């Protein structure tokens, strides 16, 4: 509707003479559609160009690098193409790291879901005023600096930290959590729990509770009504939240780096190591490709699930 094909100002000389039938709109719609398309295209163009340059194009560069050769000095030779980097993926060390990343991310996602669902249910079913206050207190950690929030756990769990000191003072002995997978999982849950809560909240808040009442009226008990009505209707929130937690957990770098130490290396840290310490760019590239493929698989799985729900 924003097309301006006709002159903006009234142009009397262009009026058809009185009495003439003007039945000449054939093609006008097409011209309007072309103008619309052009407008949309130019609005979208900057983003299109930018993201193509910095995301699509680099994706192929990463692909190319993954077949390149690492020289003895650590520089990358874009010649002697080979699949060594992909072969190396099957090294038990690498498989172990991928496996560890996977189960830590999965554990994180499951715990977040189990904690966040009743939480989101609870706040979404409060009065409007209460709900908004409760939500603000979820938003604050969501918006706070992630690095700092992770650091807080390093501080708490440290051998010199308040928890260790308190437990020693109380005679409970030392608790060794830092630099274990448990510490990493705690950090990831702490970091990504809001990403699970918010979509669940959004899904539960727009529930039509009359449907639950209808189910109860039709002889479903509370649990059955939840399982047959509430759960399917909030499935989109569960899927969105799980994806938003699993993806960054699986590729996490900051959290395992701060809380995992040398023993709990995860995939993200391992990739960074290839670029910074080991200077094996081809292998780092191959690892990145693996991460992206797994992410895309998760996304497709989610969209399949979402489509079924619709």
């Amino acid at each position, binding site marked *: 509707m924003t097309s301006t094909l006709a002159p903006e100002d009234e142009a009397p000389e262009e009026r058809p003479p009185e009495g003439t039938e003007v039945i000449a709109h054939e093609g006008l719609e097409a011209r309007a559609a072309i103008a*619309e398309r052009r407008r949309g295209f130019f609005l979208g163009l900057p983003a299109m160009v930018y993201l193509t340059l910095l995301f699509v194009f680099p994706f192929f*560069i990463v692909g190319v690098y993954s077949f390149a050769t690492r020289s003895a000095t650590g520089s990358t030779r874009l010649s002697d193409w080979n699949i060594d980097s992909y072969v190396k993926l099957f090294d038990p060390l690498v498989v172990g790291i991928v496996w560890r990343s996977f189960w830590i991310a999965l554990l994180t996602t499951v715990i977040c879901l189990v904690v966040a669902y009743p939480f989101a249910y609870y706040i979404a079913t409060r009065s409007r005023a209460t709900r908004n206050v409760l939500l603000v207190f979820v938003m604050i950690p969501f918006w706070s600096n992630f690095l700092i929030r992770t650091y807080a756990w390093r501080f708490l769990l440290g051998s010199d930290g308040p928890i260790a*000191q308190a437990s020693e003072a109380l005679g409970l002995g030392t608790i060794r959590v830092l630099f274990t997978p448990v510490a990493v999982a705690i950090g990831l849950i702490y970091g990504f729990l809001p990403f699970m809560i918010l979509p669940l909240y959004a899904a539960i808040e727009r529930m039509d509770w009359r449907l639950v009442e209808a189910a109860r009226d039709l002889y479903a008990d509370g649990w059955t009504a939840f399982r047959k009505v509430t759960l399917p209707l909030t499935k989109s929130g569960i899927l969105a939240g799980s994806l938003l937690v699993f993806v960054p957990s699986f590729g996490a770098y900051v959290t395992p780096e701060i809380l995992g130490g040398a023993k709990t290396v995860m995939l993200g840290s391992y990739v960074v190591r290839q670029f910074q310490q080991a200077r094996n760019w081809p292998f780092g590239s191959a690892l990145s490709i693996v991460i992206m493929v797994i992410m895309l698989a998760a996304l497709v799985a989610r969209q399949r699930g979402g489509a079924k729900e619709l």
Partner: protein
Amino acid sequence: MRFGIRPGSTLERAMAGNAWFVYAFFYAPIITLVIFSFNASSRVGIWGGLSTTWYANIFRNPEVWDALKNSLVVAAVSTVVSTIIGTAAALAIDRYRFRGDRALDGILYLPIIIPDVTMAVMMLLFFARIFAFVDSFGPRLSLGLGTIALSHIAFNISFVAVVVRARLGQLDRSLEEAARDLYAGPWETFRRVTLPLIMPGVLGGALLALTLSLDDVVVTAFVAGPGSTTLPVYVFGLVRRGVSPEINALSTVMLVASIALVAGSLLVQRGPGRTSELAHEITHE
């Protein structure tokens, strides 16, 4: 019996308990950190009385100030640019059918689903290749604030676009038709009706971009050159070496800053009533 649960039942009490547990989980670590940042003792876990020594130390540290300055420059530039490009992209996708609209829609989700480590690798190799290519013509390009800002714009565009698009989706199209009907041209319609009405979304997107830019460690660490360290990268470097009272103090400052930023923006957008909307916008996909 509203909401499928009986008020006062064991189940509801259990959920209330869970809620309190979650809030405690969210806030106890931060609050402890803040308290201990005022700890006079240099042994971080043992309370040794009140002190602001550590704050004085960090504010005297020129590296902190340099990193802060870098962070603010990058955040400001990337927020402004990505808000403009992202809003335009949201308008394009929501309003128009054009060649490549579905491709753009797909590409816009890439930065949201790609983990930051992978993104960092992509940016690094991209700049490495571009520099190798440009350098062959003479100029010497190097990594620095410019490459950091360019990278931040890249991932921020998507987040802005998603938030603005959610807002556009709620906009009643007949309002724009009404403006056209009342003699406003396309530009006047955008300026006086569309833009004011999607402004909360644009501001929300900008705030998200600002936060992401100020939070980013991995991408920045990859594309930063010498002398272009940002505050999160600087702090990350310190944290890797261990816990110290100075980091506690610096962390507290950064936490207070980000909370003030969010609180301010919530006030600007007329109260916490908007947070519920924001939850929908952020998670809208």
